[in-house]
């Protein structure tokens, strides 16, 4: 049977991907260019018996999804620009209290109000370091509407598996761009639910790591009853300031990522096997980069594309490997140099790494990338 298809915006695909993953609660606040995610959820969630709430501000929207997640719901919020800055406080809360949630950030120009309707990729570092303190981070950067759908499903899976916030970074272009989407059948994409405790309620500790780095999270309102705090906590969830417990807890949280990179990391490569020049690009700009690679190949230049799909954790092992093979790396991004810092770090600059930055509200064109590669030849 032919698959159901539709012409959808990236933001709409994101919302429908969330529903496919079993999202049953959305808390939001209107902000351009992310608002369509909220609009679709307000229409579709109640049809499934789920709940949509428009809160009084960005922080409250984030708070509402964390409260809902503790009852066992799969939860989503969406925002942009100043909204993601406001949400940082409680993204940190989600990290330390280890509450699964998915946050869509349709990136727009900044700082501050910036260019609300202009595209940007300037929240690369904020997605990793935005909230204070050391903490784990997962951020996905899908490029097409189809991939926005499937990566949104994966974002929910990762949030539920690793008990932490997962960010999906879109930009104004792929958030608003319309493309043909084939809807996966139910069951076609893997949907993973939160692990439930198996110990007796009396023995349950919400941060007990004796069985592994990711303790099961019981739901409020179930037979399990527990305490949650934003303070550093011991296995039982109650505050502690004991240096050895705090240290162990902080390290365990980072280990959730470091020990599971193979499961979390994702990237795509195009014509990299014999490449002498690699373009590293993500999201919308990876599409300009792919076109540029084709143009360069036609001219006999051995170019290839390395496209991170997880920006955090950055697919660093493979990136470092490729750096040893090529003569130069070009990193186009709609900011003044963010992911390039990570490329430089993981490749240890074994080859030249050149950036193309653009912050005028216009996308980086294939011609710009072609010109830059020729410049470094």
């Amino acid at each position, binding site marked *: 049977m032919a698959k159901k298809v539709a012409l959808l915006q990236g933001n709409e695909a994101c919302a429908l991907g969330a529903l496919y993953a079993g999202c*049953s*609660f959305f*808390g939001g606040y209107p902000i351009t260019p992310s608002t369509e995610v909220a609009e679709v959820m307000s*229409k579709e969630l*109640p*049809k499934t*018996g789920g*709940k949509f*709430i428009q*809160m*009084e*501000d960005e*922080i*409250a*929207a984030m*708070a*509402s*999804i*964390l*409260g*809902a*997640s*503790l*009852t*066992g*719901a799969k*939860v989503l919020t969406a925002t942009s620009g100043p909204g993601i800055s406001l949400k940082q*406080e*409680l993204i940190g*809360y989600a990290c330390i209290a280890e509450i699964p949630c998915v946050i869509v950030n349709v990136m727009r120009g900044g700082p501050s109000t910036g260019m609300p309707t202009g595209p940007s990729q300037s929240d690369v570092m904020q997605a990793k370091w935005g909230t204070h303190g050391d903490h784990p981070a997962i951020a996905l950067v899908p490029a097409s509407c189809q991939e926005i759908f499937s990566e949104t499903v994966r974002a929910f899976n990762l949030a539920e598996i690793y008990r932490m916030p997962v960010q999906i970074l879109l930009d104004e272009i792929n958030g608003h761009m319309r493309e043909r989407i084939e809807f996966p059948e139910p069951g076609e994409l893997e949907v993973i639910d939160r692990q439930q405790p198996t110990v007796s309620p009396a023995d349950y500790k919400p941060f007990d790591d004796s069985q592994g780095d990711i303790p099961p999270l019981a739901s*409020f*309102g*179930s*037979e*399990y*009853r*527990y*305490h*949650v*705090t*934003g*303070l550093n906590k011991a296995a039982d969830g*109650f*505050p502690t300031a004991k240096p050895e417990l705090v240290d162990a807890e902080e390290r365990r949280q980072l280990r959730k990522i470091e020990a599971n990179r193979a499961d979390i990391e994702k990237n795509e490569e195009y014509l990299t096997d014999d490449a002498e020049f690699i373009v590293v690009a993500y999201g919308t700009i990876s599409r300009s980069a792919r076109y540029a690679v084709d143009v360069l190949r036609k001219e006999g230049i051995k170019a290839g594309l390395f496209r991170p799909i997880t920006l955090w954790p950055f697919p660093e092992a493979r990136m470092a490997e490729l750096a040893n093979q090529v003569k130069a790396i070009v990193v186009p991004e709609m900011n003044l140099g963010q992911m390039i810092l990570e490329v430089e770090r993981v490749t240890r600059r074994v080859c030249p790494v050149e950036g193309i930055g653009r912050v005028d509200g216009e996308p980086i064109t294939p011609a710009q990338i072609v010109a830059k590669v020729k410049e470094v030849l």
Partner: protein
Amino acid sequence: MAFDYEQYLRPGKLPHIWCPGCGHGIVMKGLIRAMDTCGLEKNNTAIVSGIGCASRLPGYVDFNTLHTAHGRAAAFATGIKMAKPEMDVLVVGGDGDGVAIGGNHFIHACRRNIDMTYVLLNNYIYGMTGGQFSPCTPVGAKASTTPYGNPDPTFDIAKLAIGAGATFVARTTAFHATQIDKLIAAGLRHKGMAIIEVLDDCPTAYGRRNKFRSVIDMMKRLKEIAVPIKAAAHMTPEQLEGKVLTGILHQEERPEYCEQYQQVIASAQGD
């Protein structure tokens, strides 16, 4: 027979952090009695707080408890209640937490009339950070950040809650210990947003800066300023100068938020 508080307390989590003479313990006992009176089930109840001395209360009581970020308790609680309306949801916190940094969440929770009970312990000072003035600090009072006396006008939390749309608003003081549980119980029974303000005292951060020689002096003041709302009806404005009204100040029926949303679900599903 004496009331058994221990059945609701978490073993090993006491002593609490509150200073000698602080009224928060009185309010906690009142809250426990009220929850017992109303038969709240431990597994089906969530108590949510923000940051501050009062916000440490949930850690001591044996329910689902959520100690959130500064000011955000009502917004977290809204998410819990909305996602699982069958749960009983309470918020506990102080004045700075509730109506300064959390003011926006406070008024919008009132406006929605979501079915929760919010016990606000108003000791008119930021105690945990060492005694800075709050929106509830009396004009002229000394705090660590008002060394020349407080120039800021004061919030009337009850009026704020009523104006914002809360359908049950009550006030008492830490001196009126038996009224605390009666008002909280009435709030728990009320369908909709119930605000119970308890005027409290902070001898450490407020009293010693403001010429209260002892905790007893602070308690006497709470006794003296409280006027039951029924008695106030027979008093002149002059007699009411410097007094605060206590009891159930406001109660009305209005559609509750989660029930309203059920109608949204019904419409979406084409019922």
